[in-house]
């Protein structure tokens, strides 16, 4: 079975927030809840990079470990989902998550948390596929339609990739080699770029050499 992953290429992300908009549109995410966000580091200074971040669907998901009601489960595609009928809105997953993925509607009195909402990799929830209940609680189920998450599908620069980890790492490996970084000296980038230009290999991946 596939092991679904997101990958965001910081060298390509242009901070257009198209993925955020696509996610909101695909899943009818309520106001105040953001399953995906684009974070820009060193905004306006040299070295500025942007990354689109959502639930990373961890293999060893901290949210799932600390959940007091055990509402998380991992699908056969490696997507980490949760059952909103079981969730009690305690916020522990939010404390444990490295990426700030769990979101809580805060419409209730004194800001008490509602049931948690997070990126589902556009894979719906535990309800029957394409049911109105699933749509209402979790948004779209594009994976069941044979499609990938809309955020990655919409990405104009193909910075945000979604899919099987093997495929994604293959794509990214080709990109990295093309940029000239050496796996033996990964702290040094672009050192062979000039060499590749002189050999007429610029812009080509190694596999197509």
């Amino acid at each position, binding site marked *: 079975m596939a092991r679904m992953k997101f990958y965001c290429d910081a060298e390509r992300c242009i901070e257009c927030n198209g993925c*955020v908009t696509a996610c909101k549109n695909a899943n009818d995410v309520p106001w105040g809840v953001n399953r995906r966000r684009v*974070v820009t580091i060193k905004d306006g200074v040299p070295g500025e990079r942007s990354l689109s971040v959502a639930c990373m669907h961890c293999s060893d998901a901290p949210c799932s470990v600390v959940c007091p009601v055990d509402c998380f489960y991992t699908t056969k595609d490696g997507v980490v989902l949760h059952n909103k009928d079981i969730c009690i809105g305690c916020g522990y997953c939010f*404390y444990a998550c490295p990426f700030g993925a769990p979101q809580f509607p805060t419409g209730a009195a004194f800001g008490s948390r509602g049931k948690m909402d997070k990126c589902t990799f556009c894979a719906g929830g535990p309800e029957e596929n394409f049911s109105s209940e699933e749509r209402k609680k979790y948004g779209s189920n594009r994976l069941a339609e044979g499609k990938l998450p809309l955020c990655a599908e919409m990405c104009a620069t193909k910075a945000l990739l979604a899919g099987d980890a093997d495929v994604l790492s293959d794509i990214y490996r080709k990109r990295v080699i093309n940029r000239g970084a050496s796996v033996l000296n990964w702290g040094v*980038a672009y050192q062979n770029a000039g060499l590749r230009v002189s050999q007429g290999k610029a812009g080509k991946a190694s596999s197509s050499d």
Partner: protein
Amino acid sequence: MNIARKRHMRNAGILTLLVVFILPLIPYAISAVLTPPAGSTEADVQVPNPSTVLWQDVRQRGVEITGKTQVQGVDTGVLINKTGEEWRKYRMEILVPYGAYLMGGILALIFLFYLVRGSLKIPGGLSGKKILRFTLNERMVHWFTVLIFWLLGVTGLILLYGRMVLIPLLGPAGFSITASASKEMHNLIGPLFLFAMLALIITFIKDNFYSSGDMKWLFKAGGLLGGHVSAGRFNAGEKIWFWIASIFGLALCITGLILDFAILGQGREVMALSHVIHSISAIVMISISFGHIYLGTAGMQGSFSSMANGYVDENWAKAHHDRWYEQVKNAKSKDIPVQKGGVATSGVADSRKSD
């Protein structure tokens, strides 16, 4: 001769020029020798990978970097929450196992003590004469705190251990309702504990300061090692329990309010740290309260009535709180005779206030 002189003058001129131009350069030469050559060979050129720098920033290694994002909210600009994994390890590898060991261990010790020593009897048996130990006000504050403490304690323990203990019994859906009710009750009743704690501290603090016999009482372990130890209204053990309950109770209240009201703008790190303090305080208080409850009920004959109707037997007071007994007797002898039977009258209540 002439040629030789000219050559000599020329050499002197060159030497002078060399000295004039080279002498000021010597410090630069020294510094150049002392510092290692930078980029002397092509292999040594280190161009930091922009990605490496980026990921170091993202992981907040060595630097605190907060990004910018269009999403409004607390901590939304932070890409990696550093404390999440530490909090997970604390909760799953320290709090859950060691909390269970501590509470279970204390319960086991108390049970073992009960098997060995049994209920501690009043020396000389019941006299039938009763003296007022706790006024109605003191008892109400105590039982109000007890009620809030155990509502919070039980709901908190359900949230901490329910996944291991109750899901196998109730099933996921059944436990979800239990846990949801526990969470809501914990969050709604929680702020009341602050009022209970403040009332408890104000009511009992005056008799819980250190007094001269306390160290002796502690060294003799409260008379458990044999022999009689004198004590005032509260013995050193009760005083320590009072101060632990006050300090950990207030810590519970403050951290609880931080965790309860998630709209105050506090971030994950503050809430995770609050949870650590909250849970340690709660486990410590629950563990010690087992001992307190044991000595107040099954562990010691004649002690429960002090919190039930306010009265203790005269022989109980002589055995456990002799100095307090003397105070009460002296106060009463001036006022009214010792009450028999155990009916609270205003006269007796007043006599407690006067000491």
